[in-house]
């Protein structure tokens, strides 16, 4: 009986962890950040999707667009794939590998940690990235459809 209770407890605990994990991946609010130089302060969702898909090579001032993303197996990376690209992580990796192989886009830079991504965006003119939230003063937060978070 004791073991039975323990098993039920473990099962419920495991299930709650799984559910909360799945919810947290889907419910993460994303913030789009950009290097203060070149990257516009505001764009709509269609423009953002186009930029992050590598369809725009240069910003209006001529600086090259540099895409910075969290790796697709991180919670932020997974949410970015779902919310912005409407793809799975696997689809996104295939999408960029195929386009780089065709010579039609420059490969995005993928990061393991948010601090590395922030630092890259802060130091690289034309860089745009996606993360959960940012407090770095050197980075511009880009409004998407007028909102700070998507």
């Amino acid at each position: 009986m004791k073991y039975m209770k323990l098993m039920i407890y473990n099962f419920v605990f495991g299930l709650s962890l799984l559910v909360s994990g799945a919810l947290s991946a889907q419910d993460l609010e994303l913030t789009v950040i950009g290097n203060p130089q070149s990257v516009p302060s505001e764009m709509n969702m269609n423009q953002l999707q186009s930029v992050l898909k590598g369809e725009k090579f240069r910003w209006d001032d001529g600086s090259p667009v540099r895409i910075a993303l969290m790796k697709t197996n991180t919670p932020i990376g997974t949410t970015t794939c779902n919310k912005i690209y409407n793809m799975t992580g696997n689809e996104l990796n295939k999408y960029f590998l195929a386009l780089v192989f065709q010579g039609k886009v420059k490969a995005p830079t993928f990061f393991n940690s948010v601090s590395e991504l922030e630092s890259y965006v802060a130091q690289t003119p034309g860089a745009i990235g996606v993360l959960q939230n940012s407090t770095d003063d050197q980075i511009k937060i880009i409004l998407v459809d007028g909102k700070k978070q998507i």
Partner: protein
Amino acid sequence: MDKIKKRLIFLISFLVWLNFNNYVIAQKTQIKGFANVNAFVQDGKLNFGIGEQDLFITSELNDDFSFLGETVFKYSPNSPTHFNVSIERIIINYNFKGNHSLLIGKHHTPINYWNDTYHHGRVFFPTIDRPLLFAAGAIPIHTTGIAVQGLNLGKLKFGYNVMIGNGLGSYEVMDNDKYKSVTAAVHIKPHDRFQIGASFYNDIISEGAEVNGRVIDEKVNQQLYTATIAHFGKKFELLTEGTFASNRANSTGMVHSFLSYLYAGYRLKEKWVPYIRMDYLKYQEEEFYYEKDDTTSFLAGLRYEISYLIVVKMEYQYIDREESGQTSLFNTQIAIGF
């Protein structure tokens, strides 16, 4: 003395290695590769075979210039080592304004979607091998020359590519004649994952030129008109292309051929895609430039995408050729990216 010498060599090697690493990181150079292994049943026996090993390098030289190289190692029975190394693409890209670029080098001719998209990466191919119009030598797969390219322009995501090259019969390092090939390709992407395109190719192939291992015995004026519809949706996949070829020589006049294929697939689950492909090659009776061999082929297969870097395909193909009759083939392939 030897000890000092050894330490000095170690130090120099370390510094060279360190500098090389910095150089590579600063340039953002990436090396990727593709390979595949096949197993197939033919003439009543099971065969195993290795495919091409494709090494692919990209490098950003600065904000405007980048490099792309693709080198293939493949089986070649006539080589002393039974293997050949071939440079499939070397492209120096100058992004001169917005989404417009100047490309110079050896390209895959942007004559159709398949040739411009999949190159030698079997892991990307929706089927095990290319459509039959490639093996028939119907289209110029490579062009060495210069191109102006624009991508994702305007709301329809219009794209263009105008290429001038050495043309058919030329060598890797120089042209064999004074005639240049011209390729003009356009496409639009009115919806996500959907593309419509068309292209025109014009070339004059000189007498004595060697094309696809055959010596051309009379000057040929060639025009190719190609149309493409491509849709790779979340569930449904469709790719169909047709090339209408006109070849003209003084002795035979103008002859026409039509070469096409249609691929369709449906994603049942995230990783499973059953598919079909039909190929249709029809030559005019007087065709002299291509090897006239009217062909109809039907292929049914199943693709299992373990991940974007590992794909297994199984196929049955039935081919009916005018010259060699009917054949069928069971084929399985594992294609990887690394």
